[in-house]
């Protein structure tokens, strides 16, 4: 077995066997499940107590209001405000809603009053406001003798459907952008996370060798470059193992989800537009949302995206892991002291992520995004995001070529720093000094 493969094997096996790795790998999907359950639970949660509200309808506009979203409306039934107040103090009601007469129909704003010593939760306030707004609208329609059906025809839901000028261009629907954002965002996030996590793992591993004082023993057996590369490859393999395990486990968890959460299929249908009315307009629109998203997903060039993702992942990983290795070699035993050296590496990663989060989301093809998707320190995170929006092929090709070239360059550069730093003890190193090492013979 070659020395490099021996090193990779050791790095891989010692890491994969660690309890923290096994626990992390197994627990992350469980954590994800718990997270989903909690989110699901929170969205379903509404303060269970029913709010009893006496409705004093001074203008006679609302009549009986149906109970809605935890609010029970009780008509005043001829009682005066004073009588209602006394009743509320005795606990019959939680509060009193006084709706003054509208007076002028021109009025666009109208204030209703809520009497209570208890604070009205924003959730309940919204429910009451919505309810009263609807009722007053109905009252106005009724009073003005308008035809509700005619009025309904005034409402049109507008959505832009992008169509290509040229015949060859692929047709896009209004879902394209959303689906692209989701795919691109997920890819950018995975990149960011993996590069940070496994890059730092390489750094710690390099530091560990220095603090254990085994470096010189190793150096008398293997070339420093082999040791560094072995670490980068080993940790990368650990990262891939973890991701694959997560994908498999998350798949299993997702399959289990419907059994754990009681999702009402009818409720899901509600949010979808009625297919019947849309059919006449555009056959593309004549599908349910779910189908359309599926349709968009299938339109993406998956083999290209997956292939490019892997190359960008490897490129980004090699660039950053080798920088982390170089910095790790320069650091002493004190991790805290080395933080200043780590910062120049983490800044570009975070910056790339911010560019995606704040610029890319609004306009994936803006000038800054095109630049960031070419620049090798950013492109591993930015380009996969843009990939979901079918950028010009030459941009993808150029970006790939640049990231591969940069990966080789950074590994080479890190090797030059590493071989000097790794044998240095008991010295606090500055960035300026490290940059000098690159030119040592």
């Amino acid at each position, binding site marked *: *077995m070659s*020395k490099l493969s*021996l*090193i990779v094997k*050791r790095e891989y096996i*010692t890491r994969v066997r660690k309890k923290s790795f096994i626990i992390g790998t197994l627990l992350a999907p469980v954590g994800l499940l718990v997270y989903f359950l909690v989110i699901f639970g929170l969205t379903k949660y509404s303060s269970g107590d029913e709010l009893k509200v006496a409705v004093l309808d001074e203008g006679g506009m609302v009549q009986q209001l149906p109970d809605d979203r935890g609010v029970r409306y009780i008509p005043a039934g001829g009682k005066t405000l004073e009588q209602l107040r006394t009743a509320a103090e005795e606990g019959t009601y939680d509060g009193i809603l006084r709706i003054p007469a509208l007076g002028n129909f021109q009025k666009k704003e109208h204030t209703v009053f809520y009497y209570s010593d208890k604070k009205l939760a924003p959730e309940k306030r919204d429910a009451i406001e919505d309810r009263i707004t609807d009722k007053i609208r109905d009252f106005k329609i009724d009073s003005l003798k308008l035809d509700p059906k005619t009025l309904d025809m005034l409402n049109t839901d507008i959505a832009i459907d992008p169509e290509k000028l040229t015949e060859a261009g692929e047709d896009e629907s209004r879902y394209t952008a959303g689906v692209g954002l989701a795919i691109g965002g997920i890819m950018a996030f995975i990149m960011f996370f993996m590069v940070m996590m496994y890059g730092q793992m390489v750094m710690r591993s390099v530091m560990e*060798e220095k603090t*254990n*004082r*085994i*470096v*010189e*023993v*190793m*150096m*008398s*057996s*293997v*070339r420093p470059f082999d040791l560094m590369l072995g670490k980068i490859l080993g940790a990368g393999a650990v990262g891939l193992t973890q991701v694959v395990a997560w994908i498999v486990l998350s798949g299993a968890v997702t399959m289990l989800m419907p059994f754990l959460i009681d999702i009402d299929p009818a409720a899901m249908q509600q949010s979808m537009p009625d297919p019947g009315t849309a059919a006449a307009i555009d056959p593309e629109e004549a599908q349910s949302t779910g189908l359309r998203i599926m349709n968009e997903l299938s339109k993406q060039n998956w083999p290209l995206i997956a292939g490019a993702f892997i190359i960008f992942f490897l490129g980004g990983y090699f660039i950053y892991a080798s920088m982390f290795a170089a910095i790790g070699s320069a650091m002493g035993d004190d991790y805290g002291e080395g933080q200043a050296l780590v910062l120049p590496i983490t800044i570009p990663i975070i910056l790339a992520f911010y560019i995606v989060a704040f610029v890319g989301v609004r306009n994936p093809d803006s000038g800054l995004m095109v630049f960031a998707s070419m620049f090798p320190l950013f492109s591993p995170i930015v380009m996969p995001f843009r990939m979901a929006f079918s950028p010009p092929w030459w941009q993808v090709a150029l970006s790939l070529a640049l990231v591969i070239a940069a990966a080789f360059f950074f590994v080479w550069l890190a090797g030059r720093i590493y071989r000097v730093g790794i*044998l240095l*003890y008991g010295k606090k190193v500055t960035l300026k000094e490290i940059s000098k090492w690159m030119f040592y*013979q």
Partner: protein
Amino acid sequence: MILSVQNVVKRYDKYTAVDHVSIDVQRGSVFGLLGPNGAGKTSLIRMITTITGPDEGTIYLDGEKLHDRSPEKIGYMPEERGLYKKMKVGEQLLYLAQLKGLSEAQARKQINHWLTKFEITDWWDKKIEDLSKGMQQKIQFIATIVHQPKLLILDEPFTGLDPINTNLIKDEIRQLNEAGTSIIFSTHRMEQVEEMCDHIVLINHGKNVLYGEVQSIKNEYKQNLFRIQTETPLPEGFASNHTIVEQNSHSVTVRLPDDSHSNRLLQELLQLGVRITRFEEILPTFNEIFIRRVEETAGDQ
């Protein structure tokens, strides 16, 4: 010749760590590499072990110019030494042995041989961090010699060892040497040099300041000092004829002129009728030679 270092120079930034050093290490010898801290010993060793390369000069190991596989013939125990703390003894030794070019089977065989020899076969599955410092040093020693190197380089091998383990390792070094392994022994503890080495080089400020066979260096640096111990006090006249270095009631240390001989002194004493209980030449200790040479060369700078 197992090792030949020829006119080697190593520069770091502006200062020269090793400045035109040449040494030859005979096959089967124990060679002492001496020098004060920061003299350039470690820089020289790092070049021999191919950790770094010389800026000038050439190093030959076992008749060949140093190359990629040269480290497999060398066993190196650096002063800054350690092991992977989380690894088990067995797998750690297997790993290090394989990195030195042994196959897994060969490595296993050698490791078992040494664990048996040190009566620690039950340590195979113990983690390094669970071992005491002394125990770790034993493992470190095995890791250094497991691939049966032709040249063994030990940098301060006994630091951190208790007397029992020191003797144990010393014995092993001696046995390896008898079996034909050449040894370079880097230290600044001079009593060990006299005890173990047959050749030495003394390096100061990167330069070779003293080089040769231990016995001939001692002879070269002797100052013709003789200590005489007598039963009766020496007569008054004796002192006036000789250069007395030190005198007590029953003993005296005399420096003889270079052209004189100890027999003449003895004859003189016998004629004086003194009863001699002891007569010996005082050879300089390596400590003295070391300090003298270092001070002399410091003046050159």
